[in-house]
Every structure is written in structure tokens, then in C-alpha cells.
């Protein structure tokens, strides 16, 4: 199990930025998570936050994800979250907080990419 949380950016095509969280994330890694998300803001591309490789997230990280969604909306960028069932602890947190439906969360990155491909910006 990945203990140390890592954040990286990937390209999901010409028009999509993906921020991938792997391992454990909490208040200690929140600055890196926010920094990675904010670094995509200038790109004016759609944004996917992929939590499929994350093994733990706390409410501070959920707050960062919600902020990213709000800022994407304000900027007219499409936004999606991906979280596979295999990331069970993270999936459970999204469900008990109601965010699985609120965001909404797609079951994998391909589904998120597909949703963004048809979503109006």
C-alpha cells in the first residue's frame, strides 16, 4: 500500500488536464494537491481529478476537490472526478459524505474522459 501521497499531472489529450493522486493524502499533502490543481488553471482545459490510486483522503482533500469543481465552473471549464471501486476507502468516504453523487464521480478515468468529451463547457 502506498503510504506517501504523491500528486502528478498528466495530459488527457489536447484539451484535458488530469491531476492524479496516489497513496495517502491529508492535511500534510494538501498544499501539494492544491498546487497541482491550481497549476492547471492557466491551461483553460477541462480538468479530471483521478483518485483511483489514492488509498486515503481526508476532508481537507475533499474540500480541495470541491474548490476545484467550483473554480472550474466559474472559469467555464468542464470538470470530473474518477475513482475506481478498487480505491474502496476513498470511494466509501465519497459515498458517506454524499459527494459521490454531488460531484459526480465516474468509475474510472476512461468514463470521466468520455463524460467530458460530451459535456458542454
Amino acid at each position, binding site marked *: 500500500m502506498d*503510504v*506517501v501521497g504523491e500528486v502528478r499531472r498528466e495530459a488527457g489529450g489536447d484539451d484535458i488536464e488530469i491531476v492524479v493522486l496516489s497513496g*495517502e493524502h*491529508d*492535511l*500534510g499533502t*494538501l498544499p501539494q494537491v492544491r498546487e497541482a490543481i491550481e497549476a492547471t488553471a492557466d491551461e483553460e482545459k477541462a480538468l479530471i481529478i483521478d483518485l483511483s490510486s489514492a488509498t*486515503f483522503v*481526508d*476532508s*481537507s482533500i*475533499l*474540500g480541495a476537490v*470541491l*474548490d476545484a469543481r*467550483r473554480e472550474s465552473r466559474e472559469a467555464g471549464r468542464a470538470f470530473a472526478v474518477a475513482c475506481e471501486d478498487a480505491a*474502496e*476507502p476513498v470511494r*466509501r*468516504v465519497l459515498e*458517506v*459524505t454524499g459527494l459521490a453523487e454531488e460531484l459526480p464521480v465516474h468509475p474510472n478515468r476512461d468514463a470521466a474522459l468520455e463524460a467530458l468529451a460530451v459535456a458542454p463547457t
Partner: protein
Amino acid sequence: MAAKAENLALVRQALSGLADGVSIPERPLADLKQIATEACMNAVVHAYPDRDDGRIDVHAIAANGEVELRVRDWGVGFRPRPASGEGSLHLGLPLIASVVDSFSIESPEGGGTALTARVRLTEDEDDAPADGPPAPKEAAIAIDAGVAAKPVIARVLAIAATRAGFSLDRMSDGVLMGDVIAAGSADDFAEGRVGIDIQECGPNLCLSVGPFQPGGAKRMLDQMELPGMGVSIAKLADRVEIVEGDEGEFISIEIAPEAAQTA
């Protein structure tokens, strides 16, 4: 340990170590990590606003098929966060409430805040022992009567009502009920502290408020009305009665998920 963000991961590692030692299944271990992280984060962010040498103690004891987790700080005490910018979740306590079997928040002697949570060591509800029903969901708070009591009680009642599947309207009744309780006179409570135990009893929520000074429970019921709104406990609850306990008088309140139809 020091109240630092970088130590939150250490707490989860310690819990993983405990799980190796006493065979804690994956799901309750994940819940314990979530509870410990949220409780410690609350202490890191809020307990020591003017100090950088704050301390948090975390104790986890596995016994009788459950783990009792206690997170204690010596900071400024429990203060609900004021509403801040959009995107702020305030999900720490609701998250804890969603995954525990019972929890309590206290202001212990010596100051600070102590959160105690219990998690059963079964993989899920279906794995509960066949020789008895699952432990009832319950929460308890004890807080100094005063300005902080109202938001604390309202928030805990809202969490309990949400968890019990109350409708939005009925949840609002529960929050109003918390306001009515908090509006009572501190003099009527024993030692000036508002204590509330909340339990799920069937589909309903059962509240035990107290202990009160002798005669204080009746006095409070007579006076309990939300200022300017004419809302009293009797109008909101499905059952209200005064009971005698070992520590004094208590007001016992039961509220159903749906409001009773009145003619």
C-alpha cells in the same frame, strides 16, 4: 505527539500496526484511520491557534470486539468553525459520525477537547454477531452552557438526524430543538454543563438531556421556548418526560423521522 499536519500519517501507520497485532479487518481499520485523521486534523488546525508546541494524544484500545479510539488535545476547547468560504466542507465531524458506532466529545478537566469513538471489529453490518442485534448508534456531548452550546448541540443533532434518515424538515425540527435546549438557563444544569446523549431507538432518535439541579428539569421545560418563535420542545417532540437518574434529573425526548399528523 506534536500537533503537526505531518504527524497525521504517523497516526494511521500506528493504527495499521495495531491492526496487524489484533487482526482488525480492512473496513473497520479504514474507519479508524478516517476518525483518527479527522479528529487530529481538527486539533492541528483549531486547538492551538497561538502556539506551535501543541500536543495531541491518541489512544486506541482493542477489546471485546471493538476498538475504542480517544484523541485528546490541551488546546482552546471545542469551537465549531465559523462559516467560511464556499467549498469549505466542515465534514470532519459528519464524516466521523458516519462511520462510528458511537462517539462522544468532551471538554475534560485540564482543558482542551477529547473525542472518544468506538468502532466494531466486524467487516460490515452483516457480520454482526448472530446472538444479538448490532450495537445502537449513539452520540454524547457535554459542553459548558453558554454561547458555544447552541451550535455544538445543533450540529450534533443534525448529524444524528441525518444518520437516522430523517427528512429535511424533520432534521430542521431537530436543529430547532437543539436551539431550544441551548437557550435554557445554565443555572438549571448541574455544574453548568449541557449534557446530551443521543441514541437511535428504532427509527426514532431518543435524547437524554441533563443532569439538572433538583427541580431544574421541570423549570427548564416550563421555560423552554425559542425566543421570539414560540417553538417549544413539546411542540417539536413526539414524547417528552422527566426521569430521575443517578446523577440527577434528566429530560427524556423522543423524535420520530416524520412529524406526527395533527388534527
